[in-house]
C-alpha cells in the first residue's frame, strides 16, 4: 500500500473503534450468558476441548498452572463469613471476551492478534512468536500459552487419539499463544455456505461448541447486527450497549440483569453476562 494511497485513505485509517466508529456491517458475533441458568456442570468446557483440539496437560503441568482450558468454569462463594454457603455457589463460565477494543491486540509485536471485520479477536497461531505480551495485558487472563510441545506429549494425544483431532483447527505447537475463538471454524463454514446462497448467516444457523452442548441453554450466541437474533434481543432488552464503558441503565434500571465484566477498563467485551437470581424469601 503506497504512501499516495495512505494519503488518499487518510480518514479511513484514522477512525477509532468501537467508539466513533463505522459500525459492523454484516456480522458482529457476540454472546449472552445467563448465570441464572448456568449450573456449572462443565459440559461447555469439555465440548470446547473436543471441538478445538485443546491439549490435556496432565496432573503435573496442571499443578504448574499450565492448563489450556479455553473455557473455564469459575466457582465463587459468598464473602460474608456465614458458616454454610446456604445460598449455594456462584458459577461463571469465563472465556475470551472478544473485546471490541482488546488490550491484547495493540501490544502484539507481530500483529498476530487483531480485530476482525466480524468483531472477533483473532489469534493467528502461525504468526505468533510467543512474546506473551498479549496475555500479560489481558485483564481476564483468558489467553493460554503453549509452554510445552503438547502434540508430542504422550498424554495429550497418543496415536489413537490423534484421529479425533478436528482438521478445521490447527494443532498448536510449543511457543504459541492460544485462546477461545468463538469456534471461528464453524463461523467461517456457515459464512461460506451463506455466501454461496448470496445471503447472511441466519440466527441459530451456527452454534459455538459450548453453546451447543450447554444442557440449560445458558449460552446464546449470534450476530449482534441481526435484529432478529436472540443475542441482539437479549442485549437490547438488558439495555447493554456495546460501545459504552458504563451502562446508562445501571443508573436507573436496577431490575435488569445484564452486565459485562470489568467494563470500566474500556475493553468493550462482546460477552454479556446475566446476573444470577436467587429467591430472597426462602
Amino acid at each position, binding site marked *: 500500500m503506497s504512501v499516495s494511497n495512505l494519503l488518499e485513505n487518510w480518514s479511513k485509517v484514522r477512525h477509532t473503534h468501537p467508539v466513533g466508529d463505522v459500525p459492523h456491517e454484516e456480522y458482529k458475533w457476540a454472546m449472552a450468558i445467563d*448465570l*441464572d441458568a448456568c449450573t*456449572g*456442570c*462443565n*459440559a461447555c468446557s*469439555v*465440548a470446547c476441548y*473436543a471441538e478445538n483440539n485443546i491439549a*490435556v*496437560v*496432565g*496432573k503435573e503441568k496442571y499443578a504448574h498452572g499450565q*492448563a489450556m482450558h479455553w473455557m473455564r*468454569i*469459575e*466457582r*465463587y462463594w459468598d*464473602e460474608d463469613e456465614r*458458616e454454610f*454457603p*446456604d*445460598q*449455594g*455457589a456462584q*458459577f*461463571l463460565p469465563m472465556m475470551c471476551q472478544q473485546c471490541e477494543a482488546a488490550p491484547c491486540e495493540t501490544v502484539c509485536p507481530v500483529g498476530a492478534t487483531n480485530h476482525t471485520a466480524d468483531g472477533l479477536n483473532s489469534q493467528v*497461531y*502461525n504468526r505468533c512468536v510467543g512474546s506473551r505480551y498479549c496475555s500479560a495485558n489481558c485483564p481476564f487472563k483468558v489467553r493460554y500459552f503453549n509452554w510445552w510441545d503438547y*502434540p508430542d506429549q504422550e*498424554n495429550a*494425544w*497418543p496415536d*489413537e*487419539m*490423534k*484421529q*479425533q483431532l478436528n*482438521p478445521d483447527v490447527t494443532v*498448536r*505447537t510449543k511457543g*504459541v499463544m492460544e485462546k477461545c475463538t468463538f469456534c471461528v471454524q464453524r463461523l467461517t463454514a456457515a459464512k461460506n455456505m451463506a455466501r454461496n446462497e448470496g445471503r447472511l448467516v441466519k440466527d441459530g444457523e451456527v452454534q459455538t461448541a459450548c453453546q*451447543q*452442548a*450447554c*444442557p*440449560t441453554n445458558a449460552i446464546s450466541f449470534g450476530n449482534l447486527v441481526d435484529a432478529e437474533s436472540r443475542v441482539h434481543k*437479549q442485549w437490547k432488552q438488558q439495555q447493554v450497549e456495546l460501545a459504552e464503558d458504563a451502562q446508562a441503565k445501571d443508573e436507573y434500571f*436496577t*431490575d*435488569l440483569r445484564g*452486565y459485562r465484566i470489568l467494563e470500566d477498563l474500556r475493553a468493550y467485551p462482546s460477552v454479556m*453476562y446475566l*446476573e*444470577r*437470581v*436467587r429467591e*430472597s*424469601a*426462602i
Partner: protein
Amino acid sequence: MIENNFNRRDFLKVLGWGGAAVTLSGCGFTSVQDGTETVVSYVEPTEYALPGIGVYFNSTCAQCDAGCSITGRVREGRALKLEGNAASSINRGKMCGLGQAGVQAHYNPDRLREPMFKGQPVAWDKALGLIDEKVKTLKGDDVAFLTGGMSGHVKVLFKNYMDALGSKNHYVYEAVSPSVVRAANKKAYGVEAPRLRLDKAKAVVSFGADFLGAWVSPVHFSQQYAQFRKGNRPEGRGVLVQIEPKMTLTGANADRWIPLRPGTDGVLALGIIHALAKNGLSVPADVAAAVKDYAPERVSQETGVSVEQIGKLAALLKTHTPSLVLAGDAAEGYQHGSQNAAAIALLNRVLGNVGKTIEAPANVPFPQIAAQGGNRAALQALNGKLASGKVQMLFVHGANPVYTAPLSLKFKENLNKATFKVVFAHYMDETALQADLVLPLDSALEDWATAVPEYLPEGAQLNVQQPLMEKLHAGTRGTGDILLALLKQRRANEYGKFDDFYAYLRNAVVSIKGALGGGGKDEDTFWAETLSEGLVKLPGSGGNLSSKASAAGLHFPAVVEDAAYPLRLIPSVTANMRDGRNANQPWLQESPDPLTTIVWDSWVEIHPKTAAKLGIVEGDIVEVASKSGSIKAQAYLFPGIHPDAVSVPLGYGHEAMGRYAKGVGANAFAMLDAVSDQETGELAMNETRVKIGKTGQRIIVIKEEGVAGGKQAGKKIAARLASDKVDLSKEV
C-alpha cells in the same frame, strides 16, 4: 481389516485426508510443500462422504444409562465430535461433559485389542470355543451372569443365551443407582421411575437428589431446570431448595441449601408435614396421626435444621403448588433409606403433587426390550452365591465389581472360587484382570445395539446405537456379535440364519415395525429412516399412577453416634467420575470438579470447623479410616458440608484400567461398611462411619481455583440479584 458387516458402510473408511498426523504439524512448516503428503481417495464413491465436509450420524450415548441420543460428526471417516440429537425427548440436542468424552472412550489408547485367555492372547474362535466346551460341562445353575443395567436387543440376546444354558442367575448390578428410591416409588406410586416434571413445579425440594449432576438423567433434568427457572413461564420462576449433608452441584444451584444431619431426611419430611398441617393444609387423618410427634422443635433438634427454616419450608410448599419433592442418593443410603424415601413420597402425596408433577411413565410395549435397572443388592446376592461356591462359571458384562465392591464383601476372593470367569471389557480393568477369559468389546461408536432408557421423560423410545466409523482395532467385537456367536453354539437352528448381529438387529426391529409405528413403510425405508433418526418413538399408552404412599410403619431409629468413628462418610457421585467406569478418559480427569475445582486426584471434603478442630489445613494428606478399610487423600476445606460428615468422591483410585485412571486418587468404594437398607437389602452407601487422622504429609492441592479462593475482591464478576429486585417477565 473391516468386519464383514461393515463393507456396506464403505463411507466409514478412514481417509488420509487432513489426517491427524498431518494436522499435528500444526504450526510446523510454514511454506508450501510438494509431493510429501499422500492423499488417499475412495475406491468407490458414496453419495454421503465428500472429503472436507462433515457427515453426521445419529446414535446413542453409552457413557451412562440415561440414554441420550447423539449425533456424531464424521469427516474422512473419522468420528470427531459428538453433539446431542435434537429429536430425542431425553436430551433434546444437548449433552453433558461425560457424553462429550465418548470419543475418548472410542479412541482410548488403553482399549483391549484381542481376546485374552489367562493372560495370553487367543483367537476369537478359540475363545468362543473355550466357552462352548466349558458350558457343555456345566448345568445351568452353575452359570451366573453379572451385568450392568441393560435393555434392548442385547438384553434379549443375553436372556436367550441364559435360557439356552438354562441359567436363572442373572445379577443386574449398578454400583451407583437409585435402587432404594426405585423400590419406594414402586410402593408409593406403583411404578419404579415416574416422570418428574420440574418444568411444571413451582417449587422443588430435593432431599439429596443431584439431578443436575449425576442423578438418573442429568441432561434432561438440566433442561427442565432451565424451564423451571424461567421468569416468563406461566408458573413464574421456580424455587429450588436442596436438603443434604454434602453440597452437590444441585445444592450449589439451589436458592437455599440446607445442611442436614446425615440420615434424618425422613424425620425432616415428616416434620414438614407436621408443620404443613399446622399451617392448615388438609392432611389425611392417618398421616396427621403418624406425624403428630414430629413437632418442629424435636425435628429441629434431630435434624439440625432450625425451627424457623422448617417453618419457611412449610410456608414455601404451601404457597407454591404444585411442587415436587425428590428423594435422592443422600436420602436413600441408610439402613432406614426406604423409610426416608417413603416419608418423602408421603410428603408428595400430602402436597398433592402426585399426578401433577409426578406423572406416570409411558409403558414400553415390548417388556423384553424394556430397561432393567441395576441395583447394589444384586452384587451382595451374587457374592453370597460365589462364597458358597455354587457358581462354577461367571459372565461379567458392563460392570467392574472387583473395583466397586466394598472390601468388606471379600468379593475378589469369592470371585476366584468360580472356576471359569468370562469378562466382556473395553479395558483391562480390575475385574478383567481376575478373569480367565477376557473378550474385548467394540466401542460404543463402533457397535450396533438398541436401548430403551430406564427413565422415560416422555413417550417410550427405542434408541439405536450404530457405528460412526470403521473399527479401530480388528480384534474387538460387538457385544451383540459375541452373544450371537455364543447362541449359535447352542441354538444353531434358530440363529444360524443371521450372519451377524447387524442382520439379527435389522430383522428384529423391522419385524416389529408395525408396532414401532412404521406399518405403512416397506422394510428398507423404515430401517433407513430408523438409522438416520437414531431412534424410534414407541407409540403406546401412558401408564397409570397410584398414590398410595402411606404413613404406616414409618419409624426412624435415633442416630447412634460411634465414639471411635465420629464422622459420617458421604461418598459423593460426581458428574465426571460417577462409578469410575469412565475414569480413563483424560478430558474427564482434567475437567475440574465443579465445587472443589480439583483435578486429577480425589480429595476429602471437610467442613472448616471440623478441620479446625482436628488441626487440618488444605492439602494435608489425611487418612480416612472406617471399620472396613481406609484411604489416604488430600484434605480440602469445604464449607458446603455438614460438620459431622466428610465426603470423598467415588470413581477414583483405579489399580488398573489404563494410563489415565491407574493410580489417580483413592478408591472410596473399598472402605464402605457392608451395611444394607433393611427393606431392600441395598448396600447403604452413607452408613459408613469414619475417623480422620493426619499423616503429616502436606501437598499443594491441584485445582483450578486460585489463591483468591472464590472471592471476587469487590469486583463485579459473578453477580447475583435477589428475586424481588429483578423483573424477569419481559426477558427474551
